[in-house]
């Protein structure tokens, strides 16, 4: 288990508390490790107007060389770095980010965590992720607000019932705790649902009681703080402009902050994976499209679980702030605008008003889009590449957030050992072999 507070590292912090202004360049004082977050710390800081809090992560200039470079400081990249250090002792690591850490899809998703997947490889990695979420707040000493409130996927056709019964049977053998529940149980768990919809009455649901949600930004921030605490360098505003190779082997990267050498390179950049692959001289089966979400204005608690309704294409949960968090559909065309087409919002809201009639008089507060990277079978790639010592983790499509710790865990293992059982089936060569991991087969389930 993680002992973030006990990891001894040597790094430099500024004296920002003196001026109340952080200064990323000042190098005045050396301390062994970061102060732990706790109720005690809160009281202590409250008493002195919070002037004693340290930077959650430092902001160093890049070194000349690292054992490993991770490109992309989203959730998956930061988690990869974290497990490289924690599980494999590789701590001379840089995480390069062209924007701000956690500024991509990590902070744009609807925060659903579940592992009730049909296919064995998916169930394995998503359940690894889910189990790591259970202890993440303690492991990172950062409250990521993992809330195992339960996730249900409604069955509204006979076909869906069969699909979810199949998933339930598969889950039973995979060690994923799910059950197929009755409409009455659905209604008990979700009083605001209309189970007698004239068009699509609820016929049951696949229920994963230990699925739930977490605070998305906190996952990135918590990992970043823990990585920084291990002595890793998180270098923001640093774009990779080239992949340097010696023959078939990677030796470093060129960046907007200069060339940096590395033994191993992990590319974890979601929609931009194709650009990095292109720099390294290979192709990926990836397309980038916009996926949208929206929230309502906050209201008092009325729904304690996450509900996904795939027949009508909509899913919804209620955040701790009280907003109804709603996921919409993905566009069918390539797009890098982080805006989507409005008809997906309309279709999703239409579906949810039918399923939860009371939301009709709520108001949409905000809608936004993210760019998701889709593979040919809509399952991710965690793989070696044609370039030796270069590894790729991408293609999480619409389902990346829930996988973050599992994805980082497997990617770190693959980078450290060259093999990872969790990643085995997610090789980039599966498309050529015709060996797909197709999750849509159960009941057209969106991730």
């Amino acid at each position, binding site marked *: 288990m993680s002992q973030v507070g006990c990891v001894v590292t040597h790094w430099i912090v500024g004296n920002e508390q003196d001026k109340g202004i952080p200064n990323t360049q000042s190098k005045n004082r050396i301390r062994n490790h970061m102060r732990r977050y706790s109720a005690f710390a809160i009281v202590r800081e409250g008493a002195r107007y919070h002037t004693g809090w340290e930077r959650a992560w430092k902001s160093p200039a890049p070194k000349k060389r690292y054992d490993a470079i991770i490109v992309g400081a989203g959730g998956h990249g930061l988690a990869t770095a974290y497990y490289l250090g924690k599980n494999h002792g590789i701590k001379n690591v840089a995480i390069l980010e062209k924007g701000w850490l956690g500024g991509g899809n990590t902070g744009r998703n609807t925060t659903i965590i579940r592992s009730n997947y049909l296919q064995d490889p998916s169930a394995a990695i998503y359940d690894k992720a889910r189990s790591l979420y259970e202890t993440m707040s303690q492991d990172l000493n950062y409250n990521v607000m993992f809330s195992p409130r339960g996730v249900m996927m409604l069955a509204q056709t006979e076909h869906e019932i069969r699909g979810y019964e199949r998933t339930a049977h598969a889950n039973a053998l995979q060690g994923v705790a799910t059950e197929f529940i009755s409409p009455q149980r659905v209604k008990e768990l979700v009083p605001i649902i209309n189970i007698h919809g004239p068009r699509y009455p609820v016929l049951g649901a696949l229920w994963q009681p230990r699925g739930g949600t977490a605070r998305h930004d906190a996952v990135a921030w918590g990992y970043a703080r823990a990585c920084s605490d291990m002595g890793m360098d998180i270098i923001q505003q640093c774009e990779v402009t080239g992949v340097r190779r010696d023959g078939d082997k990677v030796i470093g990267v060129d960046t907007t902050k200069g060339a940096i050498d590395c033994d191993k390179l992990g590319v974890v950049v979601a929609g931009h994976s*194709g*650009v990095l692959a292109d720099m390294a001289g290979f*192709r*990926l*089966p*990836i*397309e*980038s499209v916009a996926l949208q979400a929206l929230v309502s204005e906050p209201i008092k608690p009325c729904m304690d679980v996450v509900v996904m309704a795939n027949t009508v294409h909509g899913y919804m949960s209620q955040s701790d702030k009280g907003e109804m968090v709603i996921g919409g559909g993905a*566009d*069918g*065309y*390539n*797009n*890098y*605008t982080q805006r989507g*087409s*409005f*008809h997906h919002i309309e279709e999703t809201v239409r579906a949810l008003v039918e399923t939860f009639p009371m939301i009709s008089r709520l108001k949409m507060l905000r809608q936004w889009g993210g760019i998701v990277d889709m*593979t*040919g079978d809509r399952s991710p790639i965690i793989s070696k590449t044609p370039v030796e010592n270069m590894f790729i983790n991408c293609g999480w499509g619409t389902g990346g957030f829930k996988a973050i710790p599992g994805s980082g865990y497997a990617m770190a293992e693959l980078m450290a050992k060259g093999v990872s059982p969790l990643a085995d089936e997610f090789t980039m060569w599966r*498309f*050529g072999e015709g060996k797909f991991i197709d999750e849509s087969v159960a009941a057209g389930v969106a991730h």
Partner: protein
Amino acid sequence: MLLLECPYCGAKCEETELSPGGEAHIKRYGPGSSDEDFEAYLFMRENPKGVHFERWRHVYGCGKWFHAARCTQSLEVFGTYAAQTFEPPQEIKDKISGKRPGWSWRDFS
């Protein structure tokens, strides 16, 4: 919400009258082709930030497939043209060259 002109009926179509069909100008590889060619044909896709050629079908209208040249970052549409062709019309390529000097896409530029 894209607005594309169907080159067959001339109608200016809202995106919801159309269905998207992915990358255009893909050559089919059938029996006898190499594993690499076949994999690339089915799965490897251009994913540029910038000029892209893609397929659409006027599904709620005349039912015809057509191609569009579009920028994936600005969503500017350089033109639409009939699907029965192996490469974009010269006038569309010229128009793109005027607006995006030095562009290239696969073998087109």
